Structures are given as C-alpha cells and as structure tokens.
C-alpha cells in the first residue's frame, strides 16, 4: 500500500517539476526577448502572446490537472465555455468600439 502511495507521490512530484520548468521557460522567453531586444517589435509581440497562451495551457495541465480524461470532462467543458464567453466579450467589445471609432473618424 505504502509503496503504491510512494509511487503515486513521486509521479505527482514529477508532473509538478515538469510544469515548473515549462512555466519558468515560458516566462523567461518573453522577458529575455524584451530585455535583450534581439527581435523586431512585431515578432516580439507575437512571441509574448504565444508564450502567454502556452503558459495558460501549462498551468491547466500541470497545476490544475485538467486533461482529456473522462473524469475531468466537466472541468474541461467549463474551461472551454469560459473561453467562448471571454472571446465573445473581448472580441465583441473590440469589434463594436473600433467600428464606432471608424464611423466617427
């Protein structure tokens, strides 16, 4: 029993360590990009955006333990629904307000 427990614990720790490393790398990349200034501005912005998205996924996968398995289906559905709503709200706001700005310009 305790062996099994021990193995489980080790596996969990393993997951957290991978998550931590990925999170640090994904934070270091944009910081490094800005501090060293090696990239032109547009590609820098893309780099930051993509790193941020990956960061979100890493957090979900390794720290909140959301994956595609059946037992996490509810959580995954809620996250996807949240994404849909945020996309509607943010995308809609940008669309409407930029349209108004254009009409008044």
């Amino acid at each position, binding site marked *: 029993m305790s062996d099994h427990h021990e193995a489980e614990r080790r596996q969990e720790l393993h997951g957290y360590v991978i998550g931590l490393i990925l999170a640090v790398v994904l934070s270091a990349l944009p910081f490094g990009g800005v501090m060293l200034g090696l990239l032109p501005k547009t590609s820098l912005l893309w780099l930051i955006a993509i790193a941020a998205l990956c960061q979100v996924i890493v957090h979900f996968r390794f720290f909140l333990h959301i994956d595609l398995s059946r037992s996490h289906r509810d959580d995954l559905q809620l996250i996807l*629904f949240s994404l849909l*709503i945020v996309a*509607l*709200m943010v995308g*809609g*706001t940008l669309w*409407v*307000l930029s349209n*108004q700005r254009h*009409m008044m310009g």
Partner: protein
Amino acid sequence: MRHFLLGSLGYDALPFYSLIATFAASIVVLGALAVLVFVTWLKGWRALWSDWLTSVDHKKIGIMYVVVSFVMLARAVVEAVVMRSQQAVAYQNPGFIPPEHFAQLFTTHGTIMIFFMAMPFLIGIYNFVLPLQIGARDVSFPVMNSISLGLTSAGAVLLMISLCIGKFSTGGWTGYPPYTELSFSPGVGVDYWIWALTLSSVGNTMTGINFAVTIYKKRAPGMTLFRMPLFAWTALCISILMIFAMPPLTVATLMLAMDRYLDMHFFTNELGGNMMNYINMFWLFGHPEVYILILPAFGVYSETIATFSNKRLYGYTSLVWATVSIAVLSFTVWLHHFFTMGQDGNVNAVFGIATMLIAIPTGVKVYDWLLTMARGRIRVSVPMLYACAFMMLFVVGGATGVMLANPGFDYQVHNTLFLVAHFHNMLIPGLLFGMLSAYHYWFPKAFGFRLHEGWGRIVFGCWVGGFILAFMPLYIVGALGMPRRSQEFFEAVYRPYLWVALCGAFLVLGALVSMVIQLWTSIKNRKALAVPVGDPWNGRTLEWSIAAPPPEYNFALIPKIDCVDAFHEAKKHRDAWRAPEHYFDIELPSNTPVGFVCCVAGGVFGFALTWHIWWAVILGAAVFFGAIILRSFNRNTTYIVPASEIRENEERWLLTLRETAFIDNDAMFTTANNGLVKEPI
C-alpha cells in the same frame, strides 16, 4: 463643510427640500421603528439573532432573501404609482413632482426592481428549493451564502438610507456617463447608486459560484444532470450567467467610481474618455441579466405546469437544450440595447439577427408547456393561473421584442414608452408572475401551511389586470412617440392612455395590499391550512418527499435517484415515504455571525464612501475582511445532529403521515388538505 468626522454630510442632507420627500423619509423611519417595536413586543431579539441573522441554513437564508425583496417591491410599486399619477396630470402642467425628483423616482424604481426586488426574490427561491430538489443538505458554501445575503441587504439598506439622507441618482437605472460623471452629477446620488450596485453585484457573483458548485458537486447519488428537475437546470444556467455577467457590471461601476473619486477619465467627455465603452460593458452584463431574471420563471412554470397537469413535463430534453441555448445566446445580443449609438448597419444587422434567434428556443418552451397541459388532469391552482397568464402575455412581449430586434424599427421607437412597455411586458409576466407563483407553490413547504387560496386568486387578478391596463396603453403612446421618463408633456392625444395606465397602477397597488391581506389571513388560519405531511400539491420532485417545514438536515437519508421525477415514480409504485432501517449522525454547518458582520461593515463602507467619510471607509473595509480572516481560524464550524434525535423526529413525522388520510385531487384547495394527495387514476 468637509469635516473629518462627517465627511460632506451636513444638515442640508436631510429630506426637508420637498413635502413628498419628507413624507417618504418619515415612512421609512417609522417603518424601521415599527419593526424594532414589533420584535421587542414579541420578545424576539434572541430568536431573531440565533435562528435567523446568524443562520447559515439555506432555507432560512432563502426566506430572508424573499423578505428583503418584498420590502423593496413595496417601495418600488409605490414609486411607480406616484410616477403614473404625475404623468396622468402632466399635460401642459408641471404636476406635483419637480423634474429632478421625478428623475430620482424612475432611477430608484428601476434600480430597486432589478437589483433589490427581482434578484433577491429569485435567489431566495433558489436558495430554498434548489438543495431540496437535488437531494442535498445545504449549498456547497453555506457561510459564503450568508455573506452574499449580507452584501445584497447592505445594498438594499443603502437605497433606503438614500431616501432619508441626501438624494439618489437621477441618471436612470443604467447610470450612463457622461451624465453620471462628476461634472454633470456632482451630488452624492450617483455614489449611492454605484455602491449599492457594487455591493449587491459582488454578492450575486458569489451566489452564482455557490449555486454552480452545489449543482456540480452535491447532487444525490444517481441524479445525473439529465435527471435534474428543470428548475434545477435553470439554476445551473443562471448561476453560470451570474458568474460571467456580473463582473462586467462590477468593473463598469468601479471604473465610473474611479472617474468620480480619483479624477480618472475612463468615461468622461475630455482627455480620451470613451463613454460608449461604459454602455458596452453595462450591457455585456445587462443582457445576460435579462435571462438571469427570466430563466428562473421558466423553471418555476416547468415545475408548476407539470405538477398541476399531473403529467410528466413534455419534451424534457428539448426544454433543457432550449434553456442552455438561451443562456449561451444571451451573450451574443447585448448590442441591441444601443442600436442607435453610431456603429454601422452591418454590426446592427448581426446583433439584430442574433436577437431574433432567441425567439426560437423560447418558442420551443412555450410549445412544450402547452403540450404538457394537453390531455393532462389540470387543476386550476394559483400557480397554474399565473402560468397561463404568462404564456399569453409573454408571447405578446416576445413579439414586440422581435419587432424591436429590427434596427430600423428600433430607430423609430427607441427611448419611447414602447420600449418601456416591452420590457415590463417581459419582466412582469416573465419574472414577477413566476416568482409570485413560486411563492404560492413553495410557501407550504417552507412554513408548513398553505397560503389562502381565495386571496391568492384576488392577488392574481389584480396583478394581471393591473399589468394589462398599465402597460398595453404604453405600447400605443410609445408608438405615437411619447418619450420615456417624461415629467411633463405637451401632446393631448397621450392623455386618455395615461389615465388608463394610472388605473392599472392603482390595480397593481391593490395587488400589493391583497398580498399583505393574504399573508395575514393565512397566518391567522394556519392551523386549518396546515400541511404537516408536506406534499399538498401531489408534487413530483424531491422537495415534496419530506416534512413541511423541512427539518434542518433536509433528508434523514440522502435518496438514490434512478429517473426524472423520482419521487412521483415512487408514489405511483407505492414506494414513497418508506421508513429507513438505520439512521446516521448528520454533520451540519453551525451558525456564525460573520454574514451579519459583513452586512453591517459593507453597509458602513458604502455609506462612508458615498459621503467621503474616510475613517469609516477604512473601518468598514477592515471589519469586513477582518471578520472573514478571523472566521478562517475557527476550526469548529460544524455540529452533529445525533442519529437518535433524527430517528425521533422522522418517526413522529412518519406517524403523522400514516394517520393522515389521502384526499382527492378536487379537495386540494380545501382545508381537508393535510399534505397527502391521492394519485388520480
């Protein structure tokens, strides 16, 4: 003037600027005093404190929510009657209400009706019914529930205080800037509005989280999502709507507050402010809010129509999907509240079409309800009357909604009474009638006796008649071009319609009085109206399977569910109300004053911010957060109800049950009803 101790509060804040204001303030003060005297006369202070204010029992919190909502309903209806009276005499005549006071009236009427009547009413009903319906002992976070109630009540109290000290906002319930910015509204009114709304919307967000988690985590074993009663489904949808829709409101009002307090320029005319973003964010909240208000009524009607038709709900799955699609679509239509704000025709067309789409799932629902009634054994109870009135009137409102969804038409009638008639036509049948029928339907479960049936019918008649008389004429004057929120008008043709509307308003006032009489008569005759067995309507869902009023632990044993309407199936197979062989200890959350402390601290915080009394702002915030942090150190947060006590309690109830005779369906509305009804063959 600006004093350390009192901020900008001074003698001139007292309501002696007009006779009507003085009168209204005196009623609030006298009403509060009367309550204090009444409680003292009953020697009820201890009971009030330990059984109610500090209780975390979802049933009691639900009842307190409904009490808050009734108090606020009374005030807002009176305000409506005053406004209708003013308009009835306002043809080329300043009438008896000056413009600024009239603006306060329509602002408070709208704010109260949405945030402090409708929201507490539906949250209260869900609080009481939802855990019982899904077979849970309480909500997932009972203390948070009590804090939510505290925050909503603090907001309601702020509104009541604004009647006595200072003036309320004149910016309408939506509070559009730049008018509500400091340069155009320098008084405290808008600040009252901001803090009352912020307090209540934070409370509502927490309620949404609480309900959603309760439904996901605390359903009885075997109750899959698709075995939940439809009322619980609407609870799931509105709690998700609350989680996503309340934050934009909180953000919008807080940004407006930063403009007013910290000299920022989010929504000002100058320095890059964009007031259109306020309107955009307000309706990002506001449209889902419409469905937060209407879906609960859909849920109630789904329960009452099935129960009083004695038939399984027709098209359960289609009703669930219709509810879910309405919830999702509600996030795609917010722009129809500001078609005329200046975006191009394509944007308007997209949102217009999305709006019309919502009529489809709503139509599905109406057909499902009609088909549930078809060939059922219909009993014409008060909830059933409300449901029928709703179906007829709501279709009219829906039709005018589809008209308004057309931007071309909307350009013609926006800002007229046509719009006012439309949304009252949606919200009175689609929210208030639903909640009133829920009140009538679940009252015997909550208190152990039925409400007086005859007076219930009078209340119904007054509400429906009053609504029709008050709002159908407004469609006509709206189409004729009468602007909403007019304190005076100069077009003679409006006059007869406004007189009819005034008659309607008086009838609604009559409904309010009848409700008080109904409650009074029912309490007086509570022995004759008692339904101790707990199933007075031959119900279908779990809440009817336990005693009325329910014991604090709800279910002695959590039931196992294997189909929709499991309790009704059990009754059909004569398998209901079986005595369990073993009883077990039950762990329940114990009382805590933290909700009440948060209510007082939140109220002080809001009031002090309104009047710039900075020491009290800090004190209120410190006590609020301090109470929550202190609470987290308390490890003894539950108590045990011993199995022996439960056995005694349940056996007493089961004995009553065995001794009670089954009554016929036809005798349901007579005093023969003790809460046990025979299944019709």
